Structures are given as structure tokens and as C-alpha cells.
């Protein structure tokens, strides 16, 4: 299981990186979203997978899965949600302001 999930993480990262390298702002943001998916899965696999029960006490189990990564992922999810939403709105505002979502056009001001 872990191996396959890890490979899945790799695939997700690959896709995300590819998207990040695009010209279109939309793709870049999608890329960041996928990156966060990937890292959440990665964090998950770092605790042992599927060993033990759901981390709810009272399910009378011998052992529980590693709860700490879960807590971390929860925090990470919330944070990446916050960032993604901000980034999205930023993209929206940028488009409204500049009329472009093409990062090549949004190069920034030049000096000379």
C-alpha cells in the first residue's frame, strides 16, 4: 500500500510541477492545489498506514493508527485551503486589473 501511495504522490508531484511551469495562471494555481494534495498523502504515508484502528478511543482496538500525522494534515489542509483561496482571488483580481492571466504577459515592470 505505502509503495503505491508513494508512487501516487510522485505522480501527483510530477503533474503539479508540470502545471506550475505553465504560462497560464490558472494552471499554476491548480498546480499548487495538487501539490498540497500530494504532500498530505505523503504525510499520511509517513505514519504507518492501516496499522491499527481508527483513532477513536472506545472502539476497543488493540492499537490505533498514528494520529499525529492526521492532526498535522488537518492543520495543513486548512492552511493550504486558506492559501489557495487567497491565491484564487488574487488571480481573479489580477485578471480584472490587467486583463491577462498569462504569466508571460505579467512579467512585471522593467527597469530600462
Amino acid at each position, binding site marked *: 500500500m505505502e509503495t503505491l501511495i508513494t508512487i501516487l504522490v510522485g505522480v501527483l508531484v510530477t503533474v503539479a510541477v508540470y502545471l*506550475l511551469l505553465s504560462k497560464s495562471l490558472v494552471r499554476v494555481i491548480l498546480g*499548487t492545489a495538487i501539490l498540497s494534495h500530494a504532500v498530505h498523502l505523503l504525510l499520511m504515508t509517513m505514519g504507518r498506514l492501516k496499522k491499527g484502528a481508527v483513532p477513536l478511543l472506545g472502539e476497543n482496538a488493540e492499537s490505533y493508527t498514528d494520529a499525529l500525522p492526521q492532526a498535522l494534515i488537518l492543520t*495543513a489542509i486548512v*492552511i493550504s485551503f486558506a492559501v489557495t483561496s487567497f491565491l484564487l482571488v488574487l488571480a481573479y483580481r489580477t485578471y480584472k*486589473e490587467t486583463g491577462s492571466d498569462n504569466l508571460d504577459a505579467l512579467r512585471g515592470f522593467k527597469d530600462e
Partner: protein
Amino acid sequence: MNNILVMPMIIPLLTGILLVFLRPYVLVQRVFSLVSIAATVAVSVTILNLIQSDGILRLDFGGWLPPYGISFVADSFSMLLVLTTAIVTGILLIYAFSSIGRAHENMFFYPFVFFLIAGVNGSFLTGDLFNLFVCFEVMLLSSYVLITLGGRKVQLVESIKYIAINVLSSWFFLVGIAYLYGTVGTLNMAHLSVRIAEVGQGSLLTVISIIFLIVFSLKSGLLLYFWLPGSYSAPPTVVAALFGALLTKVGIYAMFRVFTLIFYHEPGVTHLMIGIMAAITMIGGSIGAIAYNDIRKIVSYNVVIAVGFILVGLAVSTEVAIQGSIYYLIHDMIIKALLFLIAGTMIYLTGTARIQNMSGLIRNYPLLGWLFFITMLSLAGIPPLSGFIGKVYVGQGAIEAGAFVLLAIAFLSSIFVLYSLLRIFLNCFWGETIINEDDDVPLKKGMLIPMVLFGILTIALGVGAEGLAPYVTDAAHTLMNPKIYIDAVLNSDS
């Protein structure tokens, strides 16, 4: 249990929240923010002195002992930075009062500043790796908002790059935490150190440490500083000054902490890398600083140079060098704030950022000109201003460690700093006065006072370096002897 430890973070945080409620009352916001910054400064001073008498302090949140809960750990190093942060922010706020404008003040400008400070201070204080990530995010999100606040085209365009790259770096951070947790199974930094020392920093852990190196390099602008010049030249002056003074420093702090506390076993790999990166950073920053005619760009590249310079101390990792880095770090926070303020004020006064279009400003604004002059000298490490002592110590450390190439680059870079700023000074402040008396934009008192305060600080810090010496010595000593830190964190008597 030292609840006072949380105050440098909680006071700004609470202030930020309360200021949200006070949105319509700008004056109240101003007063309130000044008061709470003053409180933060007071608290920081108290803690700093407490550390001198009681050793490293620790606060376990919720009473959960490390490594299980999250702790704030305050040693001299972190508290020095916290204190400087508070002071710098306070002065910058004064500048903001007269420069940022009603629209911003009504749009939660002050709350965001305070959240930023909360994030910065939290990053300095936390003893937990994941919490460090969270604090980073608090800081970063505020910085995202601050950089876009105002919604000008440049800001939006540059902020996209800034945010995208920072999102990436946060991602690397999480990946690093994931790997580290996977191998070592803990998150508390002291505990990590203990566990890694136990099994030895094998090649796997070294590779993981490189991920952290990348993360902090991205945040601090070590080698991976591509995002920095653009995004630091986009936002309003105060924000740029805040960024220039604080943001990269957090990355630097984290790098110092992680590579002296946790991954210090393989200096041949990690510290060598840091050294090479610092060298390239200084070179890149130096050539960048003289490559442009835009004041903001020049100033931003100066930030880059300083980052490289400070990390020379970490790269050579002798106690003296680290002392130098700490001195320089504090100096840099103050002087970069001043530099950005002056640059911003110049642009405000002339309406242009290009040095060819300014001339003879010193006749109209003599004080501004001399402040810039002092800043220039201080940045170049010319005595007796604040950059001097740090430079000496870093140089001494480099010599002791035999890192002559680093020494040469570091010292040469200060000449580039001087040259890049000399260009501004000669072109903009000296020369024929082209603004006639009528077109003179008045320089507001509210803008001048904070700059003068910074000027005084840089002189005071240079002349009165001895006053800082015990703290800095203690800080460097703690950094070089991770055992002190570990003992303070993992003994469970408090």
C-alpha cells in the same frame, strides 16, 4: 511555566484581532497599535533579561511536556530577534501613520502588520518544527495580504510570483517535515536533535536536511532569491521596509536554528553547501545591486547581499562567526528598514524611482540625505556604525575557520554595497538641484522622525555594541552548544 513567553506573539495577535473591530476608528487604531508595540518591547526586554539570569526559558502550551506538546523556547538569540522585530515595527508604524493613507488604514492595514509580527515572533520562539511551519504561514499569509494591499497592478503581478514561490517553499517545508517525521518520529526540535544525535546523522538525514536548507533558503533569499527583488519593490514603502527588515530574517533564523541544533553533525556537507550558497548569493546580490538604475531594485539586492553575509557566519560555524552573524542580523534588521524607508521617501518626494531622474535632493532635504549617507556607511560596515562589529566578527570567524574565499567575497561584497549606494547618493542627493523650491514636496515630520530614530539606532548600536555583547555572546554560546538548548527543553521540571 513562563506564560510571559507567549506574550511577544500573543500581544500582536490580540492587537490584530481587536483592531479588526476598531476598523472605522483610525486614530484609535494608531494609538492602540503603538501601545501594544510598546508592550511587546517591554515584555521582550523582560524576557531577555530573565534569560540572562535563569537560562533558557520554556513554555509548554497546555502544560504538555515536550516532546509531546508544543513549546515556546526562548534563548538569547531568539529574544534578541524578537526584541529587534518589535522595535523596528514600532518605528515603522510611526512612518505608516503619515504615509500609508486612509484607504489602507481602513482596510485592516494595522491588523495585518500585527499578524505579520505575530508570525515572525512565533517563528523565533517556537521549539516545534511543525509549529514553525504554522508560524511561517501566519507570517506569510499576512505578507501576501500586505504585498497586495492597495491592489495596484505592479503589486498584483509581483505578488503572484511571490506567493507562488512561497507556496512552493511551504510545500517543501511540509515534505521535509514528513520525511523527518517518517525517519525520526518526532517534531520537537530538541527531541529531534537528541534522536538524530543518537543514530547519527546518516546520509538519509543529511539529504533530508538539504530539503530544509532549500526551504529556508527560499524564505531567506539565500541563493534562491529570485522572488525577492521584484516583490520587495512592489508594495508601499512601509510594507517593503517591513519585508526587507523582517521576512528574510525569519528564514535566516530558522536556518541557524536547524543547522546548529539539529543537523550539525555533517558540516562537511550541509555547512559547506551553505557556504557555497552564501558566496554565490553575495556575488549575485552584488552584481544585481549595481545592475539597475531603479532605487527599489538596488535596495532589494542589498537585502540579498546581507543574507549571504550573515550566512557566512553559519557556514563557518565558529562561535565568533556566529556572534558576528547575530550582530549583523540585528544591524541588518534596523538598517534595512531605514534603507527601504529612505528609498520609499525619495520615490514619494520625486515621483520617480530611477536614479537618473533625481538630482540634488540634499539641498531640499538635507536630513534625508545625511540619513542616507549614514545608512550607506552602516551597510558597508564602516565603523563606528552598527554594521562594523558584525563584519569584524564574521571576518574573524571566517579566518579562524580558514574560509578565505568566503572572507574575500564577504568583504568585497561590502564594497559593492558601498558602490551601489554611492551611485544613488551621488546621483540623487548630490548634483544640480533640479527640483525648484515651488515644486518641493514637503517632507512630513511623521516620515522623518522614524527615519531619524532608525539613524540613531544604527549609530547607537555601533557605538554601544558593548551593551549587546553579553546577550550576543550568550546567544552564540547557546547556538554552538546545542546541549544547553536540549537540556532546557527536555528536562521536565518546569
